[in-house]
Every structure is written in structure tokens, then in C-alpha cells.
């Protein structure tokens, strides 16, 4: 602005008769105008940098919030579906695209003496099994694994997950898990196909019996990245009309190769897992790879 005023004064003087002094002002006037324009470009560059920064970053927070809404919706929907759907009484999943075009009796598997296979809600199986000895047997755990597998099968390539039923407890220390099913992708080896190394990876299911109630928080969650969780509450009968509140939870994360999850069935692992795949024909077959 100062230079602008100076230029105005100089312009005023230059408007009159030229003199040796005016000649000097003409040169100064040109220099002042150049410096003014350089100041102007500096200001514009600053504003443009701000605008560009705004353009690049605008909406990123909102988009990540919307994506987190979707992924938490996804986890919650999956948990709801797990609690709604029917499973066969023998623990295998009901997977028929269009049941109206077939009948249940045509689904492969063992039939009951009546000729028709029986089915029930997964929660009914869990409650029934729990009422016997306040534990869940291996068949019920296989039923849970089969249900998880069938519900999340469309997303099988991309996600790993952990499902648990846990006693509501604020006491730190010993395990409160009634069931903990962990499902990950296990890398076995490379096969050479068409001169290319192709990794052999299968989905494996584990039934875990951790020694403490922070096993997931300590051994899994810190290593798998962003986790989408859904929690629900159920009551299980403990006999004589008494009930206990239990929490069911589903944690879903994008599948990744994590050392601690490569073999949770190892004896040194705090998770204390047993692989379920060999125990159920409807889970992915790993017999050829485990031997």
C-alpha cells in the first residue's frame, strides 16, 4: 500500500513536465509496480495453498465416519443374523439358495429316523446345551462355527472374525468365556502353478478356551488393525427358573497375515485353541494340508 501511494505520487509528478528528476521517478515507479505484483503473487500463492489444502482434505473425516457407520452396521447385522437363523440339529448349517424349489429332506446329510431332518434356532441349541451342565459342548461350538461360516461366506476372502459368549463380569482375571470361536485365514505353503508361486491359504475355525478374560485384547486385537464390533445380551437358564446374563460379541477385521494368529492352537498360545475344521465336514477341508 505504501508503495502504491508512492506510485500515485510519482504518477502525479510524472503527469506534468518531464525533468531529470522525473526520469529518476519513472525508473522507481516501474520497480515499485514490479515489487507490488510480486507481493500480490505471494498473497495469492498463500491463499491458493490454503484453498488446495481445503479441497484435498474436505470430507475425508465425514467419509471415514460414513464408512465406519457401514462397517459397524455390517458387524451388527451379522450378529443379528447369527441369532435369527436356523441350523440343523446336528450342527450343520442350512444353506439353500431357494428352499422353495427343493425340500429340506433333499439336503445331504444324516436323516432322523422319521426321514426328515430337524432344525432349530442356533440360540435354542445353545440354551439347550447350556442348561445341561452350564457349558457348551463341541457339537454346539461346531454349530456356531458353521453358522458364522454360512453368514459371512460372501465376505469369506476379505474378513476374519471372532465370536464369543461371555459371562457378564467385572472381576479381572480368570476366563469368563463360555465359547470363543476364532476364524482366520491360515497360510500353509506355496504351490507352483504355471511357473508362479501361488499361496495356499484356507479359512480355519478354532474353538478357544483362553486362560484369562483379556485373551482377545492381549493376543489378537493389538495386531489386526481396525476392528468392527457388535455386542448383544442374552440370558441363559441356569436351572430352577434362574437365569444369568451373558454377552454375545462379534469382532470383524480385514484379514491379514499376523504371526500370533498363524497358529493359535500352539501349546504356548494363551488362547488355547482347538481347530474345528477336521471335526465338521461342512467347514473348509484342511486335512490335506494339516498332515
Amino acid at each position, binding site marked *: 500500500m505504501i508503495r502504491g501511494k508512492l506510485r500515485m505520487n510519482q504518477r502525479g509528478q510524472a503527469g506534468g513536465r518531464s525533468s531529470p528528476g522525473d*526520469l529518476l521517478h519513472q525508473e522507481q515507479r516501474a520497480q515499485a509496480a514490479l515489487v507490488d505484483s510480486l507481493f500480490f503473487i505471494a498473497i495469492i500463492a498463500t491463499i491458493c495453498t490454503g484453498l488446495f489444502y481445503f479441497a484435498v482434505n474436505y470430507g475425508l473425516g465425514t*467419509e471415514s465416519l460414513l464408512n465406519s457407520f457401514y462397517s459397524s452396521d455390517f458387524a451388527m447385522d451379522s450378529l443379528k443374523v447369527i441369532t*435369527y*437363523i436356523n441350523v440343523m440339529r446336528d450342527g450343520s448349517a442350512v444353506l439353500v439358495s431357494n428352499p*422353495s424349489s427343493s425340500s429340506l429332506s433333499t439336503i445331504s446329510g444324516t436323516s432322523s429316523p422319521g426321514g*426328515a431332518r430337524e432344525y432349530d434356532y442356533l440360540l435354542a441349541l445353545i440354551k439347550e446345551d447350556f442348561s445341561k451342565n452350564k457349558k457348551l459342548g463341541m457339537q454346539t461350538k461346531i454349530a456356531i462355527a458353521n453358522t458364522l461360516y454360512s453368514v459371512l461366506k460372501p465376505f469369506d476372502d476379505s474378513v476374519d472374525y471372532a465370536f464369543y459368549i461371555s459371562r457378564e463380569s467385572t472381576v479381572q482375571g480368570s476366563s469368563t468365556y463360555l465359547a470363543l470361536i476364532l476364524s482366520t485365514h491360515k497360510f500353509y505353503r506355496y504351490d507352483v502353478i504355471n511357473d508362479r508361486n501361488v499361496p495356499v491359504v484356507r479359512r480355519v475355525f478354532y474353538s478357544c478356551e483362553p486362560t484369562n478374560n483379556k485373551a482377545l485384547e492381549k493376543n489378537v486385537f493389538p495386531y489386526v488393525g481396525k476392528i468392527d464390533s457388535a455386542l448383544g445380551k442374552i440370558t441363559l437358564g441356569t436351572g430352577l427358573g434362574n437365569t444369568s446374563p451373558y454377552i454375545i460379541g462379534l469382532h470383524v477385521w480385514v484379514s491379514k497375515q499376523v504371526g500370533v494368529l498363524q497358529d493359535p492352537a500352539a501349546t504356548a498360545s494363551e488362547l488355547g485353541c482347538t481347530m474345528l475344521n477336521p471335526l465338521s465336514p461342512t467347514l473348509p477341508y484342511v486335512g490335506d494340508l494339516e498332515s
Partner: protein
Amino acid sequence: MNKFTKRITFTKRGFIGPIGDDLPSLVPLVISLLLFFSIFTLTLNTYNSKNFFINKQIEMTSAAREIKGDSLILNLDQFMKKCRTVSGKNFPYNFMVGIYGADSDLRSTVNDLMELQNNGANPNSPVLSADLLGSQQNYFCVYKHVGARPFSQNAKTAYLLRYYPVAVQQAITRTVNGATVTEYLIIPGVMAMVVWE
């Protein structure tokens, strides 16, 4: 004469007129104005397109929540009613929704939904079907604005595709003690939703 000599001296010193004298200062001025308006236009366009995209995602999320409800689809009639409810609210975009069995291959979802949109019902589609008013129909609904072009999968069509796990109640027939009975079975499924402009 003396004045004329002086003017010659001026020219030699580089004076080329009122505009010509300011030419070196006009160049950065013009560059900065061009820079400013370019960045301003870019920012405005980015702002508008991101706002549009965010709005589309919000609308899609709310529509999907309304259609899937409590993640339990009891029958085709209920599903169609929910679709009509969303489209009846003047949903600002076009959408297609289909429900697949959990054992379906979802890699061809968009093509499959597009085919259903173009040909109506398709008994060979992996989309689940059920009986509605005496005829077998797919769990599929489409909503288009008046005058909107049908969905086509090309580079110019910006669309959003999302999947939601749902449980679907399906009627089955089975034979119990020699008698054919109809029972209801709840199976896992996936609701696929495509939203486009």
C-alpha cells in the same frame, strides 16, 4: 529541440509507454489471477462433488437401513412394501435392491441386478425368490425417477454398491410321516444395493 533530445534519451532508457512500462509487473499479476481462479474453480468443483458423494452415501445408508429393518426379511410382500416406502419418499437417487443366498457368488452382483432391471423377473438369477400372489418372484426391487435412464455399467455411471447381511424367512415343503407340509425356515442372505444418479 532540447525536449525532443530528452525524449530520445527516455526511449534509450527503456520507456515504451504507460502500459509498456508496467509490463514486467503485469505478468506476475496476470499469472496470480489465473492461478487464483483455477484453484478456486478446482476447490469449488471438489467441494460440490464430495458433498454430492457424501449425500449419496448418507441417503443410501438410511434407505438400506429402512429396507432391511431389523435384518430379518419375513416374506416378499414385506420386502416390497419397504421398497415402496423408501421410493415413495421421493428418494433423491435411483436404486436397485436384491437379496442373495449366502452361498451365492457376489462377483456378478451388478451384472445380475442390471439384467433383472432390464428383463424383469429371472428364474435363473441367484437372487432369492418366493411366492407372491400366486407367482414366483425374485427378491428384487428397482426405483427410478421419472425420465431417469436405466442403470448401465459404463465408465460414466457413478454408482455405489453395498452389501448387508440379512436373515430371510423362506417357505419350504417337506414330507413328515408321509404328509407334505409347509414350514418356514430362516436362512442367511445378503442384501445388495446399488444406487446411481
